[in-house]
């Protein structure tokens, strides 16, 4: 990290459930340069000021999805957020909202990952294509149908931004419902009927009231709000067409 000659104060919400009754705020002063990210600042604090600070990170380039934090109240990737934009400071960093805190800025992601298998996020085929038949061919237009939804990196910023998920943790939530659309929209996939129950449930698309925060904070432009609301129409079609036996499935 290029330390630079500017300084900024950072307030961090610290919490160790084994020792603290409630979270406390600590203030750190860090040097920064034009290209210093919030993650750089956290690493500086851990290396030079307080080794007990806990936070997740890995790739530093907005593709691993592990360094999400609340930065001044907005869910953000700390590697993709720059200190210069918060000058003269201070800026306030907390763990992602709507998830239990394990320690400091590290949250328990089970509320998302426990639900993940139910969205069937893989290609489902009635009959596997034989190797000898060669690869699945897909036109650019077919590929474009899931280009945006396949960009999700499971960073969970959308869950921290979603007031509905905050009130009701059983809600499947933005990223999972976008993931359902990603596979349903794939021309190689035949598993839509298996995924419709998740879409059709009260805890599926119907818990969304189109607040739109998920799409506003998404660092990969997935636009989960649009994906969910396209699937409200799919669910509505499925609701009525099932009586004609031409619906896309989804048992009670």
């Amino acid at each position, binding site marked *: 990290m290029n330390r630079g000659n500017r300084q900024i104060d950072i307030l961090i919400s610290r919490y160790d459930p084994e020792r603290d009754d409630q979270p406390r705020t600590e203030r750190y002063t860090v040097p920064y340069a034009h290209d210093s990210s919030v993650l750089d600042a956290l690493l500086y604090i851990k290396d030079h000021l307080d080794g007990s600070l806990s936070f997740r990170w890995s790739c530093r380039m907005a593709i691993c999805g592990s360094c999400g934090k609340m930065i001044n109240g907005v869910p953000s990737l700390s590697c993709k957020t720059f200190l210069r934009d918060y000058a003269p400071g201070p800026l306030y960093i907390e763990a992602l909202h709507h998830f239990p805190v394990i320690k400091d800025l590290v949250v328990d992601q089970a509320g998302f990952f*426990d639900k993940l298998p139910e969205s069937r996020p893989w290609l489902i085929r009635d009959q596997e294509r034989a190797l000898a038949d060669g690869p699945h061919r897909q036109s650019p237009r077919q590929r474009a149908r899931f280009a945006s939804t396949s960009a999700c990196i499971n960073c969970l910023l959308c869950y921290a931004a979603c007031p509905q998920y905050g009130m009701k943790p059983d809600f499947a939530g933005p990223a999972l419902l976008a993931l359902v659309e990603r596979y349903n929209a794939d021309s190689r996939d035949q598993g839509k009927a298996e995924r419709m*129950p998740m879409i*059709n449930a009260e805890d599926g698309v119907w818990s969304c009231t189109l607040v739109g925060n998920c799409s506003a904070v998404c660092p990969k432009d997935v636009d989960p709000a649009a994906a969910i609301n396209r699937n409200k129409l799919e*669910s*509505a079609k499925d609701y009525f067409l099932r009586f004609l036996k031409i619906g896309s499935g989804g048992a*009670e």
Partner: protein
Amino acid sequence: MAKQYKPRSHEPVVWLLFAAGGMAAAMLMPALVLITGIAAPLGLLAEDSLNYERVIGMLGSPVGKLVAFPFISLLFWHAMHRIFHGLHDLGIHAGLGYYRVLCYGFALLATLLTAGILFLI
């Protein structure tokens, strides 16, 4: 342990009415504002074009009724659905069943009244 997503929600019934109402409002309201809010006060319309006899005559015709009924009643479904979910967003969840009956009951009542009044014209 993966969460199981069931049963199916019955939300599509009211959501489709809500969506249709939104579409109706988006198409109808600009035209109504233009005619009654701008054109009429500025005297851009032919004289007597909005007088009582004319308007009631239009609404009383079979075609008028056919157009007026969905446009009026769907707006109630749209508004009450938005208010119902707005309650949830505002933090009022207790007794959602009660509010559900109140909101959609009002929309249903308004729909029946609309049908009744149009029938009597």
